[in-house]
């Protein structure tokens, strides 16, 4: 495939963000089409996701009935898939806010066509993530409220020194802000849906959630300010959430966990995995819903660049960990890292390195960055690799720690696998519902970056 040149906006001289010069109305129609007349493909995807969600239901029901013993955990390896999945999903939940908030603040206009879906992805990923710390506890019915600082007659508070508690605050804050941010961004589009609604239910539902939006100048002014403030609030959270998640490991003293590089390394990894997941979702979406002119190859290429950057950062972190382990002269530390390479879980480590460090290197080539197939394959690789990264960190450090007498091997059970699979069911079910009922592209924002939005559009000032 020849590398096609992007069309340039005649005015700004930059590349077109929406291709084929559609009108505003065309954009609205294109985005609303999947909501107003869903194709059979949606049903296939939704029913599949729903059945996988059913697996999660069964897995959790059995878990609550029997206890976490149904998983493959053992004495040295007290954290397994649940924590791996938690960190994995939180990581995925990073791209959305990064795209919407950080790129917004940096005036990266290309974000407009992907921010809605990636924010939705963030919220759903965080929902999946939030589930795990709760269900992985031995007594979730108590964990659910003892982890919250609720005043009580016994004067017992949670332990504010524990990184797990910081997690509770960090992730729930992130979830709240992301949800608000997403919702505020949705309001103009919800109003559009309300106005286009053909049934009473839709009219009422969209009506309620569009909060009486009429598109007046005053509305727009308030909206823009609120959006900006929320973007400002959300930006530090992008960094803080995974920093704090990394504290779960870094603050402990296990060789392989107790590492100062973890916060930046985790954040880079999170953005990396988040973008990969955005690609995984967007590629089918733009093709199935006919949105290729809105989510253009240029968008994909930009995301590939971010993946290349963060993947290389992650590779640097891997290398640095080894250097420090060697440089520290600490026998436990150096063993832990040698054990990753050559120990019982060598396959997990090399899967991680191949997927995370090697596979994104194809993005040095423009041809690869613009190939939908390559992008999709690499995005899947990165998803796999980032899951394995968390597996490597969690399990290899635990299974061989200080006293060799305690060493053991961790192998997951079918219930571990079912919970992981089921969490994808939850994620995709939510995502299917999202694309079915909400505009998966920010209509108003996309319009704002089209040439027509420019007051001087069409005027010849030469």
């Amino acid at each position, binding site marked *: 495939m020849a590398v096609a040149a992007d069309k340039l906006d005649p005015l700004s001289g930059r590349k077109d963000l929406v291709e084929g010069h559609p009108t505003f109305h065309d954009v609205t129609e294109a985005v609303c089409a999947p909501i107003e007349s869903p194709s059979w493909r949606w049903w296939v995807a939704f029913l599949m996701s729903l059945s996988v969600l059913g697996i999660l239901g069964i897995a959790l029901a059995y878990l609550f009935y029997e206890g976490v013993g149904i998983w493959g955990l053992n004495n040295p390896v007290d954290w397994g898939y649940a924590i791996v999945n938690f960190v994995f999903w939180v990581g995925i939940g990073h791209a959305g806010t990064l795209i919407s908030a950080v790129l917004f603040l940096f005036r990266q206009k290309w974000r407009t066509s992907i921010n809605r879906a990636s924010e939705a992805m963030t919220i759903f990923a965080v929902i999946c993530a939030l589930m795990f710390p709760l269900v992985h506890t031995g007594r979730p019915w108590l*964990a659910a409220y003892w982890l919250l600082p609720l005043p009580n007659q016994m004067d017992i508070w949670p*332990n504010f020194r524990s990184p797990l508690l910081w997690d509770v605050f960090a992730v729930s804050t992130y979830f709240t802000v992301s949800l608000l941010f997403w919702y505020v961004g949705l309001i103009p589009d919800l109003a559009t849906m309300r106005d286009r609604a053909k049934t009473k239910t839709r009219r009422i539902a969209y009506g309620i959630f569009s909060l009486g939006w009429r598109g007046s100048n005053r509305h727009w002014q308030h909206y823009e300010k609120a959006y900006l403030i929320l973007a400002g609030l959300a930006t530090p959270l992008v960094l803080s959430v995974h920093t704090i998640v990394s504290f779960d490991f870094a603050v402990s003293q296990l060789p392989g966990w107790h590492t100062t590089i973890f916060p930046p390394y985790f954040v880079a990894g999170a953005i990396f995995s988040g973008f990969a997941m955005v690609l995984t979702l967007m590629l089918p979406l733009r093709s199935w819903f006919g949105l290729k002119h809105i989510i253009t190859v240029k968008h994909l290429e930009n995301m590939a660049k971010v993946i290349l950057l963060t993947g290389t950062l992650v590779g640097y972190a891997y290398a640095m960990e080894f250097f420090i382990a060697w440089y520290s002269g600490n026998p436990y530390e150096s063993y832990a890292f040698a054990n990753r390479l050559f120990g019982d879980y060598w396959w997990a480590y090399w899967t991680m390195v191949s997927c995370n460090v090697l596979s994104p290197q194809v993005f040095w080539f423009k041809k690869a960055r613009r190939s939908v197939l390559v992008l999709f394959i690499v995005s899947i690789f990165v998803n796999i690799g980032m899951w394995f990264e968390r597996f490597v960190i969690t399990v290899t450090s635990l299974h061989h720690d200080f006293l*060799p007498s305690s060493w053991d091997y961790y192998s997951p059970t079918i219930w571990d696998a079912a919970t992981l699979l089921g969490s994808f069911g939850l994620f995709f079910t939510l995502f299917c519902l999202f694309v079915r009922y909400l505009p998966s592209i920010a209509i108003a924002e996309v319009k704002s970056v089209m040439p027509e939005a420019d007051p001087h559009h069409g005027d010849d000032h030469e």
Partner: protein
Amino acid sequence: MSKQSHKTYWRSIEARELQEQGVVPEAADEFPGQELVTLGRKVRDHKLGRRKFFGVVGATGAAGLATGCIRKPTEHILPFAKRPEDRIPGKAEYYATANQIGSTVVGLLVESQDGRPIKIEGNPRHENSGGATDAWIQATVLSLYDPDRSVGPMRNEGGELVDTDWGAAGEAIGAALAAAPQGQGVGLVLRDVMSPTMLATIRAFQDKYPKARLFLSDPATDANRRDTAETLIGEGARLSFKIDRATTLFAVDCDFLSTDADHIRLAQEYAVRRHVEKPGDTMSRLYAIEPHFTITGAQADHYLPVTAHRIGHVLMGLARELATVHGAKFDDAINGLITGSPELEGEEAKFVKFLAADLKASADAKNATGVVMVGERQPPWVHALGVAINSAMMFFGRSARAHYQDNAVPMEGLQALAAALGNKAINTVIVLGANPVYDTPGALDIGNLLSQASLVVHAGDSLDDTARIAHWHLPLSHYLETWGDLESSAGTVSICQPLIDPLFDTRSEIEILNWITTGKETAGLDLVQATWREALGNAYSDREWRRWLHDGVAAGVPRSGKAIRVEHWDKAAELVEAGLNTASPEGWELNFHVCPKVIDGRMANNMWLQELPHPMSKLTWDNAVYLSETEASQLGVSNCDLVKVEVGGRSITAPVWIAPGQAPKTISIGLGYGREKFGRHADGAGVNAYPLQAGENPWFVGGAQVTKVVGRRMIYSTQDHGSMHPGVSYTGEDQPDNVGLTYPTRPIVRETTVDGYKKNPDFAQEGDLMAEENLKSLWDHNEGVIGAPELKGIQQWGLVIDLNKCTGCNTCTIACQAENNIATVGRSEIANGRELHWIRLDRYFSGDSSRPQAIIQPMLCQHCETAPCESVCPVNATNHSPEGLNDMAYNRCVGTRYCANNCPYKVRRFNFFNYNRRMDETNGPIQNMVRNPDVTVRFRGVIEKCTYCVQRINEAKIQAHVNGVDVVKDGDIVTACQQACPTKAITFGDIADPETKVAKLRAQDRNYNVLQDLLTRPRTTYLGRVRNPNPDYV
């Protein structure tokens, strides 16, 4: 009773509560925000505040409930005539009794809570206990509540056992005996008898049926040693050892630290000479040869794996060396045989050379002695040789001793039983307590022969293999339910008193045999008292009797005083000559071992013991074919692969487990496994090795074939086997791992030699990766910050473990399990790596796997002052007490398991399932009676771990407060592991007071912290091990 002797008692719970709550500052917490002045007056004015009121109401209610619902024994089994004034529900009481396994008799103090015996302690007054026990005895309390115990007499009806009553059984037995003139054709099969009353009862039986024959069927007893003693000395003679003064010890296939006779006492005495306080202290030196690396081999300063067939020859070589080089004077009858024996070669010669020199030195030294201990597994001729060496070296009477068992009854062996059954010389067989269908050599085929006898009466505690072929089965009472008496190998007599009425319709062996003999039912108490009334004559008094019961040992028992002399050297020479000339067959040598866990199988249904890791292999719920690494690779097998072991046309198929230190071309198998229809926990565990045993010498047999067969049987060890890299010993070289990377060794266990200690007294601290002054604590800058450790208690608890004394006998693990209601998780959960033991024994090998060294390190919660587990718990479920305990609030725990991850010692255990409910479902309610009411039973989803027996600490503190002092005296708190430990390797106490035992141990230069570099400041510290190899023997 020592535990109680220095205690004073408070009258009732209410009184104590009021006493404690009448304090104003405590009540001040009640009304936060109010002025203290007003508050003080208010509280003083109204003595019965809200809190006090609820305290009183609650306590009264609890007491009422306690008395109302808990099973109470009927009054007449209480050894006190009247209920003592200070008997308080919920308050433990201790009664003395004794236990017998094989010929080992151990005096005990049994803790009873509300009439239920729940915990067994050693009786410090009993020489075979000295306050300690072993894992077997600790676990017997669980066997009392075994759900598979037989509950009433049964009759065999066409192959099915059906319920019957004692009367019917009595009639049938009476008729059979009446039909046998003078007991002609009657055989009585017994386990070893150490009870004077039982001996008297047997003699009464013999008086009535003089032609009846007696057979001994007891794999756990020292029959070979006894046979030798009777041959060399005379009928009724018994040999035993006393090694507290021995400075050179030679264990000849003798696992005297865990399975051989009197192992608790021997371990204690052994530890006396392994006590080291400062550099320059002398220690005893232990040499060991055995085919299978046991914990005795692991203790040895010089260990040599030798096949069982070869062991007698090595001992002969030693005798020769002593006679020719060191001038030992053997009796003329045997001297020629010794000096004429062939010289040893190679490593054996070297080993014997140094051993002989050391034995000679010990014999010559003042106030010291040596000893050669031949293990029960060796045939009589090797024992005879041992006796000869001990005599020639003048060890006899000092470290090797003999005495006559008064009124001993001679018993025939299993070969005689098989012959008698085979030629129908006996056809009425009464089996008392034994299980010959299962635990006799397969070559004798006793099971088959027994099933052809015209009448088999079996008395046993469960429906075992013999019960299933017997015509009548009579249920036996547990020893905690019966009256009895036991005389130890050294002649100490203890009266056994019941702790509880028989739970089921059972009787004791004494009662049954007396009933069979006389046809009358006489209570065990009357029988035992009658024996002693007769023995003591006028000296007997009720007062004396009560004193015996109280002390657990009888004083003033008349002795025959018959002089002991080894007289029959000619017979010894005959034995030895015959033994030497027995050809050792080609092929594999099979060794059978009394299992350090389930003994000979009698404890196979005890889930504590099944789940207990084997002391060396750490296998649980299974036995295995142990073989050396070399042989395994030659056979092409690895752990869990199945092999077929065949000898004399009999074969078994069993999984392999590689055992470092196993002698070449030998395999070892533990007995007692592979049960069928024996009990819910025993069935399916391991493989039965008895079928392979030969009749003549049950303990080892040559000429076997071992072949690999297709398939595996997964067996599970609690410790990663053979995983030695990176190294853990600080003395060792850096060890390369399988990919050629080299890591510094991990200073986890620290050891040196006597010389090394002299040269470098700080060897233990030098293992630290970094000196303490170079380490920075996270907490140093944060004094007063929430969560920073505040150790403001008057007393600060600490525990020291002397690695020099720990033999790895597993007693502490079971003692802890019994004390702390630790659930058993079952085979599948062990397979998942989820064992729940609070104290585990980490075993590390070092050196070459063909002749390794091993070191055992008990690992339990270290109670770190800056505990890594505490800071990570999100709900504050684990916290530090002001006295330095790392406390666990089970109620608060939500089970994130973060603490377990962050514990560098990996001592935190998680309830992955509701293990206690699972146990209830498997065992029914009876097993709950063993629970200690002072310790919470943990629910699913909760972390648990060693508490330093906080319930015992608090009990002692309450006592101290009642006595009006704030400080608990040193030694008043004894943790369960410490109490049970035969070698006193564990010491607990207040480290804040420099005068306590524990503080003095911590001040020793051998004291070190495991993982010191993490600066967790553990309260559990270790004293480095000092080995004592012969400096010239490299």
